């Protein structure tokens, strides 16, 4: 009985003297969306590369659908689909040819490949551009084509490395909808992102990766509550946020904070007390020293 799609235990990887992943451990339940959140250089792509068998870890273990990435890479490859950080499409081929090629390489017969290709073109709204070379596609179209390619056949685990980086808001939202549809189909989705909103919108579980370690993990709600209640947000007369200060929301704490604020900021500074956003959580977790870190 394999109840986890991804199991990582004390995983280590360094490049030369630089340690990239430091004793990582976590699990992803089947059929859920897991978001690995972290700044650039946190080790997100390295982790995806290890989990998808592209590189070998230095120590620890990682299993996908119960298969070890080092000792059973072929079985892992049969269980996953990878959408890398840069849309990995063949620019010389058309959208239709790209999908059809991957259907064939995934093991479908040539007749089934043709049928499946048309289905995917429709599912990802690429029919009108199907006959054009991928080089002429916009960023959003390339991403959709990339995702369509990943779904040629049904693999239980889908890796998405920064799926919406560089996309405009409309394309991003449409891609989110498509990712949520995939989750409805029972696919486990492992995505990396540097956008908090993305993790918040899509993920059942979030792990924050910083400096090769998981500094926090849990649901979006749990992470937000970790920061301790609410935040006081200060805005200047141009309506710019000048500072956010965590507070437990009690009269005493807020009064004390206000005394300090009154001494430091001009009298026309406006304040609001609100729930912490993922941004607050992120800043608090990825910089050293929680108090100073919550400075916006």
């Amino acid at each position, binding site marked *: 009985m394999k109840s986890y799609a991804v199991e990582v235990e004390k995983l280590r990887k360094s490049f030369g003297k630089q340690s990239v992943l430091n004793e990582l451990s976590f699990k992803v339940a089947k059929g859920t969306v897991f978001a690995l959140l972290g700044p650039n250089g946190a080790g997100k792509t390295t982790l995806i590369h290890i989990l998808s068998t592209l590189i070998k870890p230095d120590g620890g273990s990682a299993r996908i659908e119960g298969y070890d990435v080092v000792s059973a890479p072929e079985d892992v490859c049969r269980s996953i689909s990878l959408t890398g950080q840069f*849309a990995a499409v063949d*620019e010389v081929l058309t959208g239709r040819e790209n999908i059809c090629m991957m259907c064939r390489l*995934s*093991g*479908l017969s040539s007749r089934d490949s043709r049928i499946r290709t048309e289905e995917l073109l429709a599912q990802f709204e690429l029919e009108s551009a199907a006959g054009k070379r991928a080089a002429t596609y916009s960023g959003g179209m390339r991403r959709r084509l990339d995702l369509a*390619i990943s779904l040629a056949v049904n693999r239980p685990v889908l890796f998405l490395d920064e799926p919406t980086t560089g996309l405009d808001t409309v394309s991003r939202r449409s891609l989110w909808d498509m990712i949520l549809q995939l989750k409805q*189909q*029972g696919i486990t989705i492992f995505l990396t992102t540097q956008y908090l909103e993305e993790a918040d919108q899509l993920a*059942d579980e979030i792990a924050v990766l910083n400096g090769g370690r998981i500094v926090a993990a849990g*649901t979006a709600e749990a992470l937000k509550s970790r920061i301790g209640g609410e935040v006081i947000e200060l805005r200047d007369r141009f309506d710019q946020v000048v500072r956010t200060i965590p507070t437990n929301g009690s009269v005493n704490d807020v009064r004390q904070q206000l005394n300090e604020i009154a001494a430091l900021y001009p009298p026309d500074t406006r304040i609001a007390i609100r729930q912490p956003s993922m941004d607050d959580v992120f800043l608090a977790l990825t910089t050293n020293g929680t108090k100073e870190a919550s400075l916006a």
Partner: protein
Amino acid sequence: MNNVQSRTQPSPVSAVRIHEVRPPSLAVTNAVFIGRSIRHSLRNVESLLMAIMLPVMLMLLFTYVFGGALDPSGGYVNYVVPGIILLCAGFGSSGTAIDVATDMTNGIIDRFRTMPIRSMGVIAGHVVASLIRNLLATAIVFGVALLVGFRPDASLVGWLGAIGLIVLFILTFTWLFAAIGLVTGSPTAASGYGFILLFLPYLSSAFVPTSTMPSWLQGIANHQPITPVIETIRALLTGMPAGDYGWKAVVWCGAILAVALVWCGAAFRRKAGRR
């Protein structure tokens, strides 16, 4: 907002069976990659035209511009055709270095590597496409050569032998260029290194007999792979005995091919294998 567990619907809707599909056979994998590379070749119109036009231009140049000085009797075209064909094959196969380097720097190779297929087929695809491209160019060169006065005097066996050796030569150089494409970091670098190899035909008996060269250069020209290949093809096409050149040509090509294949395998594993 999306804490709905949906494990009860395991299947995306599709008219075809997409669950637990068996990986494709090696033959299918290679056929798909060959088809891909042929499409690439056909769509890269500039390269395709260049691969055909350059040898034709060179042949016209050598026949009409230099030919008169090199051999006033007008028979130079019969001498130079094998050299042009090898030059054309070398040039045509050098494109493989660029194709391979481009694939290696694009994210697409990572996708191939995470599929349950033998991903080295992507290189084999480029090699086969290069062979087809080059044979097409060779046929055109032969055609133009006949138009400008090339009169081969070969038996059927001679023709088959010449074509066989040309195929071997093209494969050898294409695999060599594929290895160069794998070890160089970028398509631009790949095309630069490839260029060096293209000078080899000039330092051989392709355009003038090596006996006309200074003695130190003869040493190089007589002991490099192009000369025996040229002499063998020339002998086969003109119906003359090839002598020692025949086996020397095959051994040279075979040895370089073996080295190139091993080099390619190692470079592919290092660059695109599981690290």
